[in-house]
């Protein structure tokens, strides 16, 4: 029953999306004024129904209803409850339903809370959101139905990929999806404003909280994903420039550019066409990412050809939405004036350069991600990886950071170069100090980490400069947000630089009792013992790490084996042990047993890394998200509503 009800709800929600779209269109073409009243409630109902359908799918996973194909393929009755729930979105169909749920809920939230836009722009926005929903409902129902029943229910399910059975990863995709799909709101706002030609500060102010909101989630999602890869994959890498990572980074870059350009539009009524363009690009990149990941293109062009139905469906949807929005933009571009002018040396000027660099980085990451796919289709097999991105994106990112130093210290419209210099000496001194210290004491450091840490020093000090001489209690929240986010970039950059420059690695085959030296630690391999988990068996090693100061810490890395379920092969994973110290992290992995020549197997492969300041990378990511959250809080409509309500009350009190 549950599965059938879920599917029925999806159909009704799709019908409501259709209703919003038709009613909105008829209203906007003139005449049918009363139809507009339908759009808001229909959007809200669509959101509620889709969310209910998603909850029903969770219920099916919780009950381990193996008559449902999706549950049988991706779950198992022996799994811990939390991973049964997480299994709901750990697969194609479930994750697409989650995607659509967030899309529909966003529409519902606009319908409920957006009060600043003109009525016709709001209806156009909701119609655009409904149009987006409609296509993805069709995709879900016709080619990825999550509620499909099996003719015969198997006794139990095939389980979830053990790599994904991790609490961090359980909540990573939903976070990222909120960010991805949250950008759809900016897209719909842009389309709505293009249709009614209402592009200006009011539109920018209405859009800004949504951009901030989804960007916060993208930042948290990417940071958490990076940390997950770091501790779960067992080799201590935190960013691989893997296509799946890249397609999450691309919308993040678009969001970062958009929230800076929307600030210019909201404050100075400038860069209007560009802001609209970025809003379209942002969600388009989310769709491109979804397409690349979901179509199977990633593994190979050929895996796309094996099951082309879903890929082609997504490709057509994408072509309609992106093509439609761009056509609308081209038609209206003439009537969208860029707005107020400004000098190069001004806050706006710095933000334009920020946008130029961010979009260039976006374009090159997209190019590097798609290039191998296109090349393969033309008969060339090439790989694009870290060497390319570090060499091409690295320098651009460092220049971007330097622009970030100057931007917040410049005034709007026009500023004086000499004044800018007078605000910078402390920051330049900090950078120089870092550079000299690295050259004198750092040993052989690569050029990119060296420059990275130097720029981090400059940015760290300069990012605090906007607070200089201000009454900190009266400083508005968005200013705090900017300062904290920019400081977070410095922290993150310093972590990346220090980790790549000063990492220490030891790979050995060790017998119990052996002592391995790495960095400042002497690590003693005490021994191993078997451990039984809820749905795996494991060999747990015990290591005692002693610092040169004499402090000792116990570390317990594990090598886990998940049995194959319903005829699948067993899977092995490494659970690294991490020791976090103020100066960095000690990372230990227990590998496989090693047999000596005489046949005894008393030694184990042990991998140890000392990673200086590595946790600063994620601390920085967290600070960036925190800064954006403070900005959002400072600008959120809720606060505005609360304030105006208080004002109204006090006015009413004094009214005659």
């Amino acid at each position, binding site marked *: 029953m549950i599965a059938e009800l879920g599917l029925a709800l999806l159909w009704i929600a799709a019908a409501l999306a259709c209703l919003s779209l038709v009613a909105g269109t008829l209203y906007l073409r003139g005449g049918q004024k009363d139809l507009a009243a339908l759009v808001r409630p229909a959007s809200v109902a669509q959101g509620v129904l889709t969310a209910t359908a998603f909850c029903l799918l969770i219920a099916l996973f919780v009950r381990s209803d193996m008559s449902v194909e999706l549950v049988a393929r991706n779950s198992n009755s022996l799994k811990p409850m939390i991973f049964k729930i997480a299994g709901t979105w750990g697969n194609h169909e479930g994750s697409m339903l989650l995607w659509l749920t967030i899309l529909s809920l966003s529409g519902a939230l606009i319908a409920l809370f957006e009060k600043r836009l003109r009525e016709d722009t709001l209806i156009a926005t909701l119609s655009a959101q409904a149009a987006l929903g409609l296509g993805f409902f069709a995709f879900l129902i016709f080619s990825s139905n999550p509620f499909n029943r099996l003719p015969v229910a198997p006794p139990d399910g095939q389980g979830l990929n053990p790599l994904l059975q991790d609490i961090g990863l359980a909540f990573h995709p939903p976070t990222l999806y909120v960010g991805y799909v949250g950008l759809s709101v900016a897209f719909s706002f842009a389309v709505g404003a293009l249709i009614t030609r209402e592009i200006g500060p009011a539109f920018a102010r209405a859009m800004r909280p949504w951009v901030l909101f989804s960007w916060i989630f993208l930042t948290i999602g990417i940071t958490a994903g990076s940390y997950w890869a770091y501790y779960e994959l067992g080799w201590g890498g935190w960013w*691989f420039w893997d296509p799946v990572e890249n397609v999450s980074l691309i919308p993040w870059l678009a969001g970062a550019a958009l929230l800076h350009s929307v600030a210019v539009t909201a404050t100075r*009524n400038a860069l209007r066409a560009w802001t609209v363009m970025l809003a379209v690009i942002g969600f388009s990149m989310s769709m491109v990412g979804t397409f690349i990941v979901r179509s199977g293109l990633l593994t190979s062009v050929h895996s796309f050809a094996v099951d082309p139905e879903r890929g082609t469906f997504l490709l057509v949807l994408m072509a309609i939405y992106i093509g439609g929005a761009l056509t609308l933009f081209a038609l209206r571009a003439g009537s969208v004036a860029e707005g107020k002018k400004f000098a190069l040396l001004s806050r706006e000027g710095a933000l*334009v350069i920020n946008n130029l660099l961010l979009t260039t980085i976006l*374009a090159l990451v997209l190019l590097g991600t798609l290039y191998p796919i296109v090349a393969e289709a033309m008969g060339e097999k090439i790989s694009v990886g870290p060497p390319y991105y570090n060499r091409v994106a690295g320098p*651009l990112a460092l220049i971007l950071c330097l622009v970030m130093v100057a931007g917040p210290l410049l005034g709007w419209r026009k500023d004086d170069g000499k004044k800018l210099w007078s605000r910078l000496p402390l920051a330049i001194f900090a950078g120089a100090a870092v550079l000299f210290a690295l050259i004198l004491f750092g*040993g052989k450091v690569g050029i990119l980490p060296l420059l990275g840490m130097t720029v981090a020093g400059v940015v760290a000090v300069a990012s605090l400069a906007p607070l200089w001489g201000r009454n900190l209690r009266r400083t508005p929240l968005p200013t705090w947000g900017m300062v904290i986010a920019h400081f977070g970039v410095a922290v993150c950059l310093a972590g990346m630089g220090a980790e790549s420059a000063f990492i220490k690695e030891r790979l050995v*085959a060790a017998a119990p009792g052996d002592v391995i030296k790495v960095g400042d630690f002497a690590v003693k391999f005490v021994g191993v013992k078997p451990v039984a988990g809820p749905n795996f068996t494991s060999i747990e090693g015990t290591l005692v790490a002693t610092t040169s100061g004499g402090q000792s810490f116990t570390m317990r890395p594990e090598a886990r084996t998940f049995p194959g379920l319903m005829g699948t092969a067993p899977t092995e994973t490494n659970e690294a042990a991490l020791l976090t110290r103020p100066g960095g992290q000690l990372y230990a992995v227990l590998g496989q047993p090693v*047999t000596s020549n005489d046949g005894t197997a008393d030694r184990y492969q042990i991998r140890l890394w000392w990673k200086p300041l590595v946790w600063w990378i994620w601390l920085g990511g967290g600070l960036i998200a925190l800064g954006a959250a403070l900005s959002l809080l400072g600008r959120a409509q809720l606060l505005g509503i609360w304030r105006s309500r208080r004002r109204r009350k006090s006015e009413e009190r004094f009214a005659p």
Partner: protein
Amino acid sequence: MRLMLVLLGLLGAFTAPLAAQDRLPPAPYAYEQLRDPAKEARAKALMEELRCLVCQGQSIADSDAPLAGDMRHEVRSKIAAGESPDEIKAWLVARYGNWVSYDPPFDRATAFLWLGPLLFLLLGGWLAFGRFRRGASDDAEDSA
């Protein structure tokens, strides 16, 4: 880089460890470092640029796949024998094609990959600076 791996690198250098997943045990240098820190650093840098051919988006420096282990052994052995990273890479590219290297060469097929970002930057810069020239002189006139 201050790598101290004189003592323990010796321990298991020429024994045959047992792999649970694969029939054949991994080769000695798959999970062990070279004794000379300078050589190990060169090997490590090269391994990070080589694709693990059977994995999804991982270099041979961070994969548990048996093939990645064999390739690490190959790279470390050749570096130990005195070959340069470029020679080893050329040898691998001759065997597996450019697919094996994460650092694509500059040739006709990849020209746009390498020059594209520069084109984007120039195009974007040209568009943006066009705006400044017009904008620098006037003050606060609203062109809307």
